[in-house]
């Protein structure tokens, strides 16, 4: 088993949280994980990109320019990584902020999610990232919802634990949306 992905958005969108959740769940299963964040220079409002590789075996390159999937939460993310996505790969994008016309690849699987609206619907505008994570979970086979739920307990700091149920709800909603999405 080998999987690599790039998750990208602007600071505050919660890219770090969902990627750490995936990494933690994978480690709990005994998988190898490499997780490489790259931050912009500015202190605030900068970008957050995460390069993640998950594997049964020792991980070689921690960085990839042909990821199997890309989660793009804003337009810059899409612009930067759409081209890199491996043929047949999965693009999950936040159609609340990214106009659909920008999707030009036709050799990939695409899931468009109105993350912001769905998040508000799920009760908290900050849940956009969880919606995306849900869709991601639906489409991968090496991690289960239960494993993410377990990871959540470890990753979320004590003072934020109260948000866990909301998070889980949003993930489930994301999964649901992904199931509804017709594969292109």
């Amino acid at each position, binding site marked *: 088993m080998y999987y690599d992905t790039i998750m990208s958005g602007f600071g505050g969108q919660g890219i770090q949280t969902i990627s750490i959740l995936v990494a933690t769940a994978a480690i709990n299963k005994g998988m190898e994980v490499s997780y490489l964040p790259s931050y912009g220079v*500015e*202190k*605030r409002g900068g970008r957050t990109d995460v390069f993640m590789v998950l594997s049964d075996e020792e991980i070689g390159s921690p960085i990839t320019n042909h990821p199997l999937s890309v989660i793009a939460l804003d337009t810059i993310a899409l612009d930067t990584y759409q081209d890199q996505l491996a043929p047949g790969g999965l693009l999950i994008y936040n159609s609340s902020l990214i106009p659909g016309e920008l999707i030009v690849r036709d050799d990939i699987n695409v899931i468009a999610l109105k993350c912001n609206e769905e998040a508000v619907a799920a009760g908290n505008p900050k849940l956009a990232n969880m919606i995306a994570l849900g869709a991601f979970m639906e489409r991968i086979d090496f991690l289960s919802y239960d494993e993410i739920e377990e990871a959540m307990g470890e990753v979320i700091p004590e003072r934020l634990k109260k948000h866990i149920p909301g998070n889980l709800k949003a993930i489930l909603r994301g999964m649901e949306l992904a199931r509804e999405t017709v594969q292109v």
Partner: protein
Amino acid sequence: MNAVFKRPDALTDRETHFCPGCTHGTAHRIIAEVIDEMGIVDDIIGIPGVGCCVFLYHYFPIDVLEAPHGRAPACATGMKRAQPDKIVFVYQGDGDLAAIGTSEVIHAANRGENISIFFINNSVYGMTGGQMAPTTLLGQQTTTTPYGREFRTEGYPIKMAEMLATLEGVAYSARVSLHSPKHVNQAKRAVRKAFEMQVNQMGFSMVEMLSTCNTNWRVSPREALKVVENEMIPYFPLGVFKERTGKDFL
């Protein structure tokens, strides 16, 4: 109707990379205003230190040299000696001037180099993420003083304006603040004084400006102004610590 206040010509219209409410921006503007008022924009060269001010050249449409961290006063020395007819100014943070660059600023001051230094004291290393600076207040938590600065282990906040004022070569040394309109206007007058010292070949001038770093202080921009007023100023008194008059200077 006429504009009675607009962006000075000595600032480009590029948006700054500074965090919201960071008074580095204010310092930039008042320096630019003075450059405009004195009509020296064509003959000025700026040397920023390394820190949040490193992109000076994005904002000032003037010649700029990027100096190694802390060494801007030495670079300025070489530059001013090579071009005594140009105006040379240095813009440094407290890490740059009061930590790694201590020796360079003291000896440039002591030699009475005819340059002007604007020193942004925001009590932390802003650009690198808010570590303790020599100017960090006692008790202040930073990323390298997680339990608060303790004088027994990290020493006392250093008062550069006062220390430099003890040196003969210094023509002007003042501390100002950027936390209120009144203080910003005072600060601007100090900037003008510093440049005038240089134009009149009176020697070394330095203006220390108490400035905010709300991001690393982990407070809002508004609260940051209060921190300057209520915590910094009591320890770092404002004032002119040395001012050479024509008469002193033989």
